Each structure stands twice: as structure tokens, then as C-alpha cells.
């Protein structure tokens, strides 16, 4: 099936080469980072994780969100998701690939990555994260490829995939739970030390992932002969609505606990992010952009009239995605480190090389999505052709 990715329009190849060029530039900057060290980034002794780990955390969520298609289709027999299921699974593959790259570029000694395998350490959450992420990647590649292959031959998928599909449901939950546990179990970081962290991660994931999928589905309709269909997109829109409301609700729970208890350690990070602390306020504007986008998106999603309008839905989904990207891909990480354990403020902002490397990794993700979607859509287009021939 992969050969379908090797034939395409001029526009397809233009996009592929554009992505390759971006990846190339990112890789050149990565080589600079490799030679100089992570000091090339904006990270410091006080804010020791930044954009890279933020992107990783956010993208684990996007990956996990494939389950929002799998559950309705396989457990509730919601047949309308049948055609776009593959888009969700392949988005998950691309997201996990990005996650792995973001972990790699964040490592001080990437050549030693196999130490995690050579010295397996079950008490480290990172050990479990490596297992669940790689497992999830494998599951989605196998499931996606097999079901698509069966579709193409117009036969039902082999019976052995079914158990894997069922397994992929709790597995998706596990990848984001384990990722939340990276943060939620650390004694000295009150901003992260919250039992609701995993739940909040899942809620924001189930909003951001399907929101992105809606945008991708609309693009697919515009650029190819395959129409994912109005109804599945509307169903996804409802999922985004519920999940986004839940996500914001969980954030409000955090704010309540911090500010009603008045425990300084729990309030300070929120103060830094949304109001500035000790005269430092680099994060304030983007955190409020995130808030405004969240509110606007929720209003547009709740009102049936605006949600049903696909252009407005697309805008609302973009707002959800950007809002959560700021909140989780950036604010959550920086907020955990500010103030530092001495209640001093050291600010963080990504440097240019760091940003370009991050864009390079995103380009890798888009390349994977493009190639996989090209295959999936070519299969769908074949089906449409064969259907129109028989009529």
C-alpha cells in the first residue's frame, strides 16, 4: 500500500519537499545543539524542562485521542466513524513519532538512550512511559495498516486485530495517565502535585486531538476526492465540546483548591502564569490568550447553530487546539518550575534554535501524517471509483 505515497500531484510533492526542507533546517540546528549542548535552548538550572517536553506532553494527548473514534465505533457500533477511523489512528502514529523525537532532542546524552533498556528501572515513571508509548505506536501501526489493507480488498479485517483494537482502548488511556504521572508524583512541585492531573490531561487531550482531526478532515475534503462526511465531523464536534468544557472545569478545580486554601506554594505558579510574580510576567499575555480562546471556543461549540456551521466549527476547533497547546504544551511545564524551590523567579523563553528544532520535529510529524493519509485516502478514492463504476 505504501506505493500509493509515491505517486501524487505536483501539489503533494511540493508539500513533501517543503516539509523535508523544514526538517533539514531543523536538523542543522539540532546538530548545533548536539555540538554545543542544551545550553543553546532557553532552559536553565531553574527551568530545566521547556518547549521540547511541553510538546511531548501535548502530543501524547493528541495521540491518545484516537480512542475517541475507536470507542464509539467498536464499542457503541457508531458506524459513521468507520471511514475516518483510519485518520484518527494515523494521527496517533504521527503524534507518537513526534513524542519520541521531542524526547530525543531534549536528552542531554541522546547516544545513551539505550541505558533505559539496559538498566530497566520500574520505579521510574519514565521507564513506563517508554513502554506505553512504544507499545501504542506499534498497536496503531498494526491496527491501522491491517484494517486499511482489509478495506482495500473489501474483506472484513482479520479476526486477530479485534483483540488488539480492544487493547488499544485502555492503552490510549494509559499513555496519557503515565505521562501525567511524570509530573503528578513529584514532591517539590506543588503546581503539578495534583490528583486531578491525569484526568485533566485526558480531558484536554480528548478536546485537542479531535479538534485537530476535524481540521484535518475538512482539509481532506477540500484537497481530495474523499469526503469524511458531515455527520462524523459533527459527532466529533460534540466530543470536542464536552471534552473542552471538562478540561476547563478541571482547571477551575485546580484554581479553587489553590486559592481557597490560600497555601502559597499552590498559588504562586498560577499567580506567575496569569498575573506575573515579583515583577516577572513573560507568560501572562499568552496565558490570557489561551483563556480567551478557550472561552470563545466553548461558546461557539455549545451553541448548536454555530457548531453546525462547518467554517465556524473549524475556527472553534483551531481555537481549542491553540488554547490547549499554550496551556499544556507550554504553560503547564513552565508553571511547574516557577517559582523555583527557593521561591525565586527565573523566567524561561525558548530561543530561536530551540524553536526551529521544535518546528523541525513538527514537520517530521506532518510528513508522517501526509504520507499515511495519502495512503489511506488513495484507498478511499479507489473505493469511491469502484463504487461509481458499478452504478
Amino acid at each position, binding site marked *: 500500500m505504501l506505493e500509493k505515497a509515491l505517486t501524487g500531484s505536483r501539489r503533494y510533492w511540493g508539500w513533501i519537499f517543503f516539509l523535508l526542507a523544514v526538517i533539514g533546517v531543523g536538523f542543522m540546528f539540532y546538530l548545533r545543539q548536539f555540538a554545543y549542548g542544551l545550553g543553546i535552548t532557553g532552559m536553565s538550572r531553574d527551568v530545566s524542562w521547556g518547549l521540547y517536553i511541553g510538546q511531548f506532553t501535548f502530543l501524547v494527548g493528541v495521540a491518545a485521542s484516537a480512542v475517541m473514534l475507536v470507542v464509539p465505533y467498536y464499542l457503541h457500533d457508531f458506524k459513521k466513524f468507520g471511514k475516518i477511523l483510519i485518520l484518527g489512528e494515523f494521527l496517533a502514529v504521527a503524534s507518537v513519532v513526534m513524542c519520541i523525537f521531542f524526547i530525543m532532542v531534549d536528552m542531554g546524552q541522546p547516544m545513551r538512550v539505550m541505558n533505559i533498556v539496559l538498566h530497566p528501572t520500574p520505579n521510574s515513571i519514565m521507564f513506563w512511559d517508554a513502554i506505553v508509548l512504544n507499545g501504542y505506536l506499534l498497536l496503531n501501526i498494526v491496527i491501522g495498516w491491517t484494517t486499511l489493507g482489509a478495506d482495500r480488498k473489501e474483506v472484513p479485517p482479520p479476526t486477530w486485530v479485534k483483540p488488539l483494537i480492544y487493547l488499544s482502548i485502555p492503552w490510549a488511556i494509559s499513555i496519557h495517565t503515565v505521562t501525567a504521572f511524570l509530573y503528578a508524583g*513529584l514532591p*517539590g512541585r506543588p503546581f503539578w502535585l495534583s490528583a486531578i492531573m491525569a484526568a485533566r490531561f485526558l480531558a484536554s487531550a480528548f478536546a485537542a486531538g479531535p479538534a485537530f482531526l476535524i481540521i484535518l478532515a475538512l482539509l481532506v475534503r477540500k484537497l481530495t476526492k474523499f469526503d469524511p462526511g458531515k455527520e462524523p465531523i459533527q459527532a466529533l464536534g460534540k466530543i470536542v465540546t464536552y471534552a473542552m468544557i471538562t478540561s476547563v472545569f478541571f482547571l477551575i478545580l485546580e484554581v479553587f483548591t489553590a486559592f481557597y486554601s490560600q497555601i502559597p506554594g499552590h498559588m504562586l505558579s498560577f499567580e506567575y502564569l496569569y498575573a506575573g510574580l515579583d515583577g516577572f510576567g513573560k507568560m501572562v499575555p499568552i496565558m490570557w490568550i489561551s483563556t480567551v480562546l478557550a472561552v470563545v471556543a466553548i461558546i461557539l461549540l455549545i451553541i448548536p447553530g454555530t457548531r453546525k456551521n462547518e467554517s465556524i466549527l473549524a475556527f472553534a476547533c483551531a481555537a481549542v487546539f491553540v488554547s490547549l497547546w499554550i496551556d499544556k504544551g507550554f504553560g503547564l511545564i513552565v508553571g511547574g518550575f516557577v517559582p523555583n*524551590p527557593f521561591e525565586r523567579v527565573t523566567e524561561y523563553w525558548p530561543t530561536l534554535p530551540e524553536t526551529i528544532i521544535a518546528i523541525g520535529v513538527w514537520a517530521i510529524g506532518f510528513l508522517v501524517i501526509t504520507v499515511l493519509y495519502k495512503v489511506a485516502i488513495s484507498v478511499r478514492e479507489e473505493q469511491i471509483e469502484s463504487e461509481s463504476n458499478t452504478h
Partner: protein
Amino acid sequence: MSISRRDFLKIAGISSLGIGFSATDLLWKNRAEAVEYMTSPKGLKAKRWAMVVDVRKFKTEGDYKRVIDICNRIHNVPDFGNTKDEVKWIWTDTFEHVFPFQQNKYLPETVQEKPFVLLCNHCDNPPCVRVCPTQATFKMKDGIVAQDYHRCIGCRFCMAACPFGARSFNWRDPRPFIKHVNPDFPTRTKGVVEKCNFCVERLEKGLRPACVEVSNGGLIFGDLADPGSEVRKILSTHYSLRRKAELGTRPSVFYIIGGDEDA
């Protein structure tokens, strides 16, 4: 002697299996040796090393400088001249930053303004060890939280986990920033985490930590498990504080603050 193709393949298969087994055996042996390190007969031994910082004994700027300088010198701690790349093993900060939860503005001025010596707490229940995915940071039998610079992958999970800001990362190559390299202690490479090691290399030779030696009694070192040790004696007669004890990491560095009358 001629052998058939079939026999040859059999023999080749069996011998390659044999090589495989002996190779894993070899690897396994090496691994065991690395874990079971030898202790020197001359070395100082303890069940639970600990330190008491007697803040009252630190009076002049020189008192702080001495303990910090000796550590930096013998451990090849680089000086980058900026806070972003900074690597710190032992340093100072004021009361409100060292004990952020205990701050109260009516404390004696001497306590409020005085610098406190800071270093790794060598916690009895260290979160950094718990989170490390490669066991590059580990707790030794005598309680010291050690760091293997050659195994560390630089993920910095330990830095996020440490509630005491005791860990530093080599954001860039530290070697050009070491003024006089001490050839008896390893220099580090970029991309690994490091911190105070309670002078484990000196304890092995029967010497106390370098900072303790030059502290004129300001830093007291000893075995917390031994009721007759110097640390136990001073802790049983003076009120002491540990940083963020409520987090349950059980720090092994104690602070005797004292009031104005002791200063």
C-alpha cells in the same frame, strides 16, 4: 575429513549459540562487578552519613567562601559566570529562600539576613533516585545519594523531582570553565546532571568532606545511626531544622539556627 553441509550448519549453529551465551555471561559478570563495589579498609564507614550546619559558626564572608571554594576546586565545579549555565554543589541563600514555609517577618534580623549554606540533602527517601530511569543516581549503603556521570542520559527528571534545587545540569561543556583542573577527580561532560556527593571520594580514603574540614566547626559530619557520633550529640542538645521536612524525603542535612544570643 569432510563434513556435510547439514552437519556444518548444525555445528555452526551450536557454536554461535555458545558464543552468544558466553557473551551474555561476560556482560552479566561485568555488571555484577560494577554493582558490588569494593570499600577501602582505610575508609570511613557509617550506616547513615549526615551533616549538621551550625549556622552560628558562620560569621564572616570568609567562613562561607572557604567551604564553597574548596568544594569547587577539588570537584572541578565549573564557573560559567552566568546563572543560566550555572553548576552548583554548595552555595548560600537567605532564610526566606532556604525555608520558604517557615518565613516570618518577626525573626531576628541576624537570622533574616544571614546566608545559609546549601547543598544536596542526601535524603533518606530521595525522589531523585525514585524517578531516575537508568539508576544513574542511586542511594549507597551508607545513605549517600550518588550520581554516575557515565550512565546519566540527561533527561533531567531528577532536577524536576528534587524539592531542594540541589541538582545542576551541564548545559554546555564545563571543561573550558574550570580554572585549575584537579586530576584526582573526574571532570564532567555536557549533557549530564551532577551535585554534591558528600565527598565520597575522600571518605574512601579516611578523610571527612572537604567543606567540613575547613569550616571551623560550622559543618559537622557523622553517622546518624551511631548515638555516640558528633552529629547525634549536637542534634540531641540543640533545636534543629530540616528543609521542607513535611515532604517526607527525610533530608540528612540539619540546620542549627540559634537566636541572637548565640550569634
